[in-house]
């Protein structure tokens, strides 16, 4: 290599950043399972033989996997997926709910198993890397979240705290989600959207351990609020809650339990907490989702939006996202 080539090599190593996350074997295994054309050689493992060669679709397996949660290194993998129709009422005294059927759609090629006795885990077909069924309640899909050694999920009518090691439901609190929005854990409080509509938005906070209600924060909505919105509540890396509230996004300080800030006239796109806001067209509802690298969150369009907006870009001064400073053409960015 000559000097110029050495300089180029040195610069490439120096400037190329570290990735925000690593690729894992589980990512690759899921990729293999998701691409039917690509599979390990026959005879490698009985799962591959029984599933891939047997010709069963992976759809139900992937549906099950979509609600699996990796519950931390110590707890291994916890799954909380069960049949929609199998739900039994979870008692509010903290005792685990009764056992229910794990399937209501038996496959002709691979009949469903009877549920194992209570307290016994069940390996799930296609549950790569040893995923097991640990809880037979019917949780809302995508409602699972984890923090501080506990899992939290929403059932029909309950917010549940789950032990990821055993799958036992440890505490429950009555809660009927008005819109689909994952519980958010900030500190020792689990926050949920208690009501969401034209009459206003109310967030409720529950003690992360006991699920006793500890806070209720009204969030005034400006403009229209869609009850079909999804993912309207998220937490930022600054420990604040961000709530899609009509034509604006409200910032709630969970410690002060009040709205402290409002991002006015937000548009769809990612918000980098410290720097800039990518905007699209106006719409009636919002969805908020943390970015993978936790540097910000996505604002996305309402499911009611009937047309794809032409993306635009806005930048905002750090800490003052309410005052976008520039508008220019840009492409929409991925999370």
């Amino acid at each position, binding site marked *: 290599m000559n000097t110029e080539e050495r300089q180029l090599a040195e610069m490439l190593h120096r400037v*190329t950043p570290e990735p925000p996350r690593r690729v894992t074997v589980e990512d*690759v295994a899921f990729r293999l399972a998701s691409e039917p054309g690509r599979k390990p050689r026959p005879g490698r493992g009985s799962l591959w033989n029984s599933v891939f060669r047997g010709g069963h679709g992976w759809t139900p397996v992937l549906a099950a996997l979509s609600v699996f949660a990796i519950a931390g290194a110590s707890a291994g993998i916890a799954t909380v*997926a069960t049949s929609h129709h199998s739900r039994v009422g979870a008692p509010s005294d903290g005792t685990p709910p009764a056992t229910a059927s794990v399937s209501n759609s038996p496959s002709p090629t691979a009949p469903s198993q009877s549920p194992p006795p209570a307290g016994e885990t069940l390996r799930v077909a296609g549950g*790569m890397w040893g995923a097991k069924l640990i809880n037979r309640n019917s949780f809302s899909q995508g409602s699972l979240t984890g923090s501080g050694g506990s899992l939290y999920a929403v059932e029909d009518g309950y917010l549940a705290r789950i032990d990821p090691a055993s799958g036992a439901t440890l505490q429950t609190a009555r809660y009927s989600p008005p819109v689909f929005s994952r519980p958010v854990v900030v500190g020792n409080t689990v926050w949920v959207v208690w009501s969401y509509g034209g009459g206003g938005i109310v967030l409720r906070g529950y003690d992360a351990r006991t699920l006793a209600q500890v806070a209720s924060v009204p969030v005034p909505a400006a403009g229209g609020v869609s009850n079909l919105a999804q993912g309207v509540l998220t937490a930022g890396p600054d420990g604040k809650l961000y709530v899609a509230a009509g034509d604006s996004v409200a910032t709630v300080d969970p410690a002060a339990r009040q709205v402290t800030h409002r991002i006015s006239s937000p548009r769809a796109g990612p918000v980098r907490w410290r720097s800039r806001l990518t905007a699209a067209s106006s719409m009636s509802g919002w969805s908020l989702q943390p970015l993978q690298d936790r540097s910000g969150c996505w604002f996305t369009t309402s499911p009611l939006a009937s047309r794809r907006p032409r993306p635009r*870009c806005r930048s905002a001064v750090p800490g003052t996202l309410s005052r976008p400073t520039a508008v220019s053409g840009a*492409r929409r960015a991925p999370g």
Partner: protein
Amino acid sequence: MALTSVEVLPVDDRPSEPDGFREFVEARSSALLRSGWLLTGDWPSAEDLVQTALAAAWPRWASLTRQDAPELYVRKIMVNTFLRWRRRRWNGEVATGRLPDMQAYGDAFAQIDARQALIAALDRLPPRQRAVVVLRYFADQTESQTAAAMGCSVGAVKAHASKALARLRDAPGLAELMTGGVTS
């Protein structure tokens, strides 16, 4: 909102993971992702590229380790996949996390500017020249290894590298980066 049906099928074993595959992924995924970022210019695509290459390597892992060349093979798949994407994908709309109205806000944003300048410079290169730059100068592969990965001759690698360097010389902001400046 609730899951409508989850079918629980009998299963007696988990998929077998090739010996040494996990160790390789844990040890090398960062470097592979960084190469992927240089090739594609964004992390989601880089991750996609690396996962694609590792998924291709999985079924052949035993043979690759016998040949003592798993990383060369993975990089070869990455480059070929990248070149195939560039041929086949519609590039009229580019998914990007980079915004055009970037301003510098202290050192953190100077780093971002440096990365943007680097990616903008690499974007000026045709795909094969870009692949040669990444393999040769970032992955530190020899000319013959680079040629093997790209399925071309050593002479072609030299020609691509020479042309790429000529183009990069004219890239705005890259000269300052090459002579020092912002670190990641």
